[in-house]
């Protein structure tokens, strides 16, 4: 499944400045692994040492926080819109 991931400004150093990148994945956990494959260093920025999404990062699928869904196990499907958002910044369409 190919989905579009929106990356916040501070992480664009890892994506050669790209703000929207297509990623293949069937759930969020896999999406993060595949981001890491294509853009090494990404996982360490998104996840803490135990592999959970950092406290101050929010991930939205089609405008819905994954904490309202199944967190890392939330499934993604073709055409979904995934946004990575610093929690304190509060912005999701960055």
């Amino acid at each position: 499944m190919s989905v579009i991931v929106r990356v916040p400004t501070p992480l664009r150093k890892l994506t050669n400045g790209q703000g929207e990148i297509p990623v293949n994945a069937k759930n969020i956990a896999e999406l993060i692994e595949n981001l890491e494959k294509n853009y090494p260093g990404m996982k360490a920025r998104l996840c803490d040492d135990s592999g959970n999404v950092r406290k101050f990062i929010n991930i939205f699928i089609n405008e819905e926080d994954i904490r309202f869904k199944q967190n890392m196990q939330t499934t993604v499907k073709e055409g979904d819109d995934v946004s990575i958002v610093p929690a304190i910044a509060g912005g999701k369409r960055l």
Partner: protein
Amino acid sequence: MSITKTKSYTLGLRCRECLKEYPIQPHHVCEDCFGPLEAVYDYAAIKKVLTREKILSRKHTMWRYQELLPLDQDPTVGLEVGYTPFYRSRRLAQTLGLKELYIKNDAVNFPTLSFKDRVVAVALSKAKEFGMNIVACASTGNLANSLAANAAQAGLESYIFIPADLEQGKVLGTLVFGSHVIGIRGNYDEVNRLCSEIADKYGWAFVNINIRPFYGEGSKTYTYEILEQLGWRAPQHVVVPMAGGSLITKVKKAIKEFYDLGLTEDASTKMHGAQAEGCGPIVHAVIAGNDLFKPEKPNTIAKSLAIGNPADGYYAIKAIKESGGWAATATDEEIVEAMKLLATTEGIFTETAGGVTLAALKKLIQSGHIPPDESVVLSITGNGLKTQEALVGKVGVPELIDAKLSEFDRIYKKP
């Protein structure tokens, strides 16, 4: 007051999570881990100058603790803010069965009748130090009122973003000051997300976004005053309303700072958090025993507290747990009941947020988290004149008569 303080006691900013250090700048998020930045002080130097005598010799405003606020120069905005009434309750205490209850009343804070005047005074003084001329905020209402008023007095242009469905008193009480007021079709969390994008794009001083590390510090003065007014003592319990969760984390910080500076002898206050049942992500996490909260979609008459994705939620949960405190929510009916109870026992007309706080106190007494013989401070942070909608139809209507004595006799005889 002189133009420039001889010394600034703020050393810089630091990430609360990974401790990376940053210079003093309008910036609030750590580049490495996205944690929040916080002001760092030279406490050793402050300890040498900030004594009880020094504080007592100063004017009765929030600036009597100015070494503990993150400014590099003397304040220029909100010079008259703070030092609100604090007193021992008699009738409410009796009703609740509490031996020692105090009320800290920011419903009469100056100039806009809520504790937000404290955070705005620091934020706008700091924005002026940075040379920023356009100030802005995302607000659930009280911050809007305060930013608009203080910006007007300071001669700063202001842009204020609010959920479109706020109470009329809050909307009117913002527009009157000549601000640009933008109502957003959406809840506060959506307003806040939009504002971060605007802050990024336009570079304005958004007091609760890019100025947040400075802004939040202003609310410490609410607690410094409690400690001073209680005779340089810390109460055993304090009950605090929570929206973004900033105020309660600053209650904790203020108590610790006064203790570390030797201004008080005790820092073991239990902090209890209050939210509405229809928007209680922090309380629900505390009760469930979780360290992280789950965002909620707000549905409550306590609109000033209706933040479903609280920026300081994580630290609020931590502050409550570490202090040994607890948390409780209030339904809409309980909020109205509590507003009426405070009014009829203490003569204080608080807004819905105050109703939430008192309703939570009642529950915490019932559940045994607040024992009846321990000292308790009830935090009243906003004014009821701003949320009159909540009480329409709930407090009766005046009896209507003609201007004749016989008419009055008639109704007086059958009360």
